[in-house]
């Protein structure tokens, strides 16, 4: 589904991603872990197409399309979804209005007929039930006055409504208490199927107790320095990041010589 090859990207003069290789297939859950500043969120932003990042080398293939050639909205229309670390407020626009616009724009782009209001409302109700969301939520303005947990749940609700092929969850666990975390994680698990894929970006192993990954990658200093199964996450939890990062730093230092 997703093939990232030798991706190098940064902001202005500073290079943040220094050659990322990553392959994600349908039905898989990948976790990307790493210390602060390792480039996790940058990777998510570059895949989604945030313009302030400049790609200097490499490519991203998504189901045969070169993502780097597409605008952010075209990427979304192809089925790439980013759950934001810091979801933004859109004052005066209700959750239902926003999602309605989003769905109708995506359907328009893919040549599908617009959804009837009746179908849309039914779908909203079903997904709200799935995510334990109470009534009254749809008429609130997008993220305005939402608590941290509500914002993250709103992201997952949109993911449920848009049914993307690839979901990237950027630090979805940050700022959540254990109950909110469980609700969000359960939602993600329920939405998982053999045709879609998920990339979970997190600093802590905690979220991976609930969303169990097939693969774990450790990102450090703009490179994936170690990949493995879910056990790797537990190992990191136990030993911290130092033991791998030091090893990697030594290796790259030697290469420079």
């Amino acid at each position, binding site marked *: 589904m997703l093939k990232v090859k030798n991706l190098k990207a940064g902001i202005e003069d500073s290079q943040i991603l220094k050659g990322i290789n990553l392959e994600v297939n349908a039905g898989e859950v990948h976790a990307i872990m790493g210390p602060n500043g390792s480039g996790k969120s940058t990777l998510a932003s570059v895949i989604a197409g945030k313009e302030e990042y400049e790609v200097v080398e490499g490519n991203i293939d998504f189901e045969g399309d070169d993502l780097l050639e597409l605008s952010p909205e075209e990427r979304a229309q192809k089925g790439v979804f980013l759950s*934001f670390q810091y979801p933004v407020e859109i004052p005066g626009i209700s959750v239902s209005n926003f999602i309605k616009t989003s769905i109708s724009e995506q359907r328009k782009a893919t040549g599908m007929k617009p959804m009837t209001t009746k179908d849309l409302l039914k779908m909203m109700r079903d997904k709200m039930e799935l995510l334990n969301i109470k009534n009254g939520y749809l008429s609130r303005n997008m993220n305005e006055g939402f608590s941290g947990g509500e914002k993250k749940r709103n992201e997952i609700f949109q993911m449920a409504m848009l049914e993307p092929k690839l979901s990237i969850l950027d630090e979805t666990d940050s700022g959540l208490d254990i109950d909110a975390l469980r609700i969000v994680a359960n939602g993600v698990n329920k939405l998982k199927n053999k045709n879609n894929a998920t990339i979970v970006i997190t600093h802590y192993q905690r979220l991976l107790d609930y969303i169990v990954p097939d693969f774990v990658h450790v990102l450090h200093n703009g490179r994936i320095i170690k990949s493995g199964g879910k056990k790797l996450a537990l190992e990191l939890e136990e030993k911290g990041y130092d033991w791998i990062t030091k090893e990697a730093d030594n290796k790259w230092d030697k290469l420079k010589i």
Partner: protein
Amino acid sequence: MSEKKKQSEDELLEKVTSTEYKYGFTTDIESDTIPKGLSEEVVRIISSKKNEPEWMLEYRLNAYKTWIEMEEPNWANVNYEKPNYQDVIYYSAPKQKPVLDSLDDLDPEMKKTFDKLGISLEEQKKLANVAVDIVMDSVSVATSFKETLSEKGIIFCSISDAIQEHPKLVKKYLGSVVPTRDNFFSALNSAVFSDGSFCYIPKGVKCPMELSTYFRINEAGTGQFERTLLIADEGSQVSYLEGCTAPMRDENQLHAAVVELVAMDDADIKYSTVQNWYPGNDEGVGGVFNFVTKRGICYKNAKISWTQVETGSAVTWKYPSCILKGDNSIGEFFSVAVTNNFQQADTGTKMIHLGKNTKSTIIAKGICAGKSNGNYRGLVRISKGAANSRNFSQCDSLLMGDKCGSHTFPYIEVKNNSSKIEHEATTSKIGEDQLFYCNQRGIGTEEAIALIVNGYCKDVLNQLPMEFAVEAQKLLEISLEGSVG
């Protein structure tokens, strides 16, 4: 900001300036005009062409004498070449003035114009239950629903007809809220006003439909001087809609309207405007000069609510105001003012609290794009006798791009210590983060801006009657096509 990002922003901003006015066309209708310029003689010609009684001529001549002694005001934060008032045609009327029983009798050319605007009168009649008094170049050519209204004793006609048929009411109230010498433009209007609307709602009557007038400036170089007088007698209720579009012109067109509202005890007037006159081209050439004086007076327990969506005109100078004379009266002002390209707007309101327990609310939303300049100017005056009066003001500005400007000039005068005033103001830009968020959900940048702007204006758009709100939303989208911040 990266170079690439900057470049794409510049490109989009380029696009803004290349978005042309979509309602630019003229209707080919034979007109009867008088020579350019203003003199006592011209005032006499206007009055006699309209067969006016002596008192009306006197009123006009007085106004003319006042006007020639006045100077055009300079205090507004707008820059424009002052019009040459001797180079304006002050009267223009379609040659045949047909009397229409139904809209099917309308001149086909004129009908085409309305079709182009997307204002199908038949449809409006059926769907919106609106009585439409069309003012096409100064003279009313069609009035509908008159019968339904007259059953309730409601008078809704052109001001010219009112001068002939209801001289007592006109004589009593004309100039009672906006005196001739109030300002330069009101004096000019009082001297030469060609037509406009008159409305009287009798005691205790709730007007069964929205009253609506569509204004158009049609004759090249003709200034339009509308005069509107609306009287809501004790305990009555009315909602009045005013919407405008103008054809594309190269030379500046002068527009100086006066609107007077009288809300007697317990009366309720809602006055809504959508203004989309030609704003000039992308180089700032042409466009309508819109110098309007709108004011209402509230007696005991009365309420006046002004709602405006201003997207047009090259220069706008407009402050719909309320004089809260009676105890417990209420004044409201809801405004969205959009400026793009080289448009300039200096608009706001005045709330004059005289009575006890009077209340006013001001919600003003400015949106600036291109190289435009948008200003809010508002006055809240609480007089000594206005005990326990209250005001709430909220003035927000939304900027798009880095070439536009926005200013807020709130004047507050309080002479009473039992009163309460609140003022809130914000200035924001449409954030890149907001746009990216929308983009990431598959919403393109144009759509995203429309969405964000609609959300921003929601408090004002909600005040508009349903059918008007849709039109206003469409206008906002057209006005801001291609803008990005």
